[in-house]
C-alpha cells in the first residue's frame, strides 16, 4: 500500500499529513502514558510493533499474479487503539522510507493514514462488535486483522484516485476501479493469511496470558481517548 515518493501532488501530501497529525499526537500522548503508568506493558507494546515490522516486510504472492505485503496492525490496534497504532506504523514506514526507499517521506502522511489509522480503525470496530457478541478470540482477531489489512489498501486506492483526478483530470470512478483492482483484489488472499497468523497469535495470548486481554477489553474505540 506504499505510495512511492513523488506519486502524490504536494497538496495531497499536506492534506494527508494534516489528517494524520491529530491521531499521531494523541497516540504519542497515550503511548507515553502507557509506558509511564504501566511499565509492565512495555513488552506487549514492543510485541505489537514487532508484528507490524515482521508482517509488513513479507511480500507474498497473490491471485492477481503480483506480490503485496500484509500490514500486521491488528494486534497494535486491538490492544492500544488507533493512535498508538498510527505511531507504531509511522516508525515502520520511516524505517522503510529511510533504508529501503520503499514508500517515501512526502507520502508518509498518506501511507500512515491508510495503514496506521483508517484500516486499523475499521478492524477495531469489527473486533469490538465480535467480542461484544462473545465470538472466540481467534475469530474476532481474524476478522479484525482481515479488515485492517484490506481497508488499508482500499484507502490507498482512494488516495491515488483522488490525486489522479486533481492532477491529470482523470475520472475519479474509473481511476478508483483501476486502483482497487490493483491494490484491493491483490490484497484479499493476503488479508486472509494475515487474519490467520494474527488470529493464531491472539489465541496463544488469550490462552497463555489472559491478563493481557484486559488491556484489549479496556481499550477504547475513540482514537482521541488517552486513557491508558
Amino acid at each position, binding site marked *: 500500500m*506504499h505510495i*512511492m*515518493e*513523488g*506519486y502524490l501532488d504536494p497538496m495531497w501530501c499536506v492534506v494527508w499529513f494534516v489528517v494524520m497529525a491529530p491521531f499521531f499526537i494523541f497516540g504519542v500522548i497515550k503511548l507515553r502514558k502507557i509506558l509511564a503508568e504501566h511499565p*509492565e506493558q512495555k513488552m506487549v507494546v*514492543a*510485541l505489537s*510493533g*514487532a*508484528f507490524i*515490522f*515482521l*508482517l509488513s*516486510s*513479507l*511480500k*507474498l*504472492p*497473490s491471485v*492477481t*499474479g*503480483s*506480490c*503485496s505485503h500484509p500490514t*500486521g496492525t491488528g494486534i497494535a490496534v486491538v490492544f492500544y487503539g488507533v493512535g498508538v497504532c498510527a505511531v507504531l506504523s509511522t516508525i*515502520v514506514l520511516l*524505517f522503510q*522510507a529511510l*533504508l*529501503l*526507499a*520503499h514508500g*517515501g517521506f*512526502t507520502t508518509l502522511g498518506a501511507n500512515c493514514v491508510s495503514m496506521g489509522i483508517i484500516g486499523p480503525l475499521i478492524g477495531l470496530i469489527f473486533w469490538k462488535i465480535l467480542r461484544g457478541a462473545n465470538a472466540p478470540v481467534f475469530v474476532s482477531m481474524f476478522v479484525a486483522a482481515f479488515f485492517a489489512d484490506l481497508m488499508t*489498501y482500499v484507502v*490507498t*486506492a482512494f488516495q*491515488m484516485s483522488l*490525486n489522479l483526478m486533481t*492532477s*491529470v483530470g*482523470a475520472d475519479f470512478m474509473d*481511476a478508483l476501479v*483501476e*486502483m482497487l483492482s*490493483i*491494490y484491493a483484489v491483490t*490484497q484479499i*488472499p493476503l488479508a*486472509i*493469511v494475515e487474519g*490467520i497468523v494474527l488470529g*493464531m497469535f491472539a*489465541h*496463544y495470548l488469550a*490462552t497463555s*496470558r*489472559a*491478563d493481557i486481554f484486559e488491556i484489549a477489553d479496556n481499550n477504547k474505540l475513540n482514537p482521541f481517548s488517552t486513557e491508558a
Partner: protein
Amino acid sequence: MANDKMIYILGFAVVAIMVVGILVFVPGDFGGSDDSGGEAAEEAGYVPWLTDWIDAVYGELPGEIESLLFALQAGIGAVIIGYFIGANSARKKATGSAMPQ
C-alpha cells in the same frame, strides 16, 4: 491443549497451502502491487515530481540488497516476538501457571 495445537497446525498449513498454491497455479511475474499502482498512475498521465532519496543519491538499490534490508526488518520483528514467547514460557515454568505477575 491438544485443541490449541490443532489450531496452530491447521493455521500454518492453510497459510502454506495458500501461498504455494497461488505461486503454482496463478500465472504472473509476481512484481509488487506498490509498483503497479505507481505504473498505473503514470499510464494515466501522471508524472512523478520527486524520486526517492536512494535513487537520487545512489541509484537503484540492487535487488539483493533490497531483500537483505527486508530480511533485516523481518528479523527485528521476529526476534521481539520470539523473545516474548520464550519469556512467557519460562515464566510459565517458573510459576507453574500462566497467572499475571
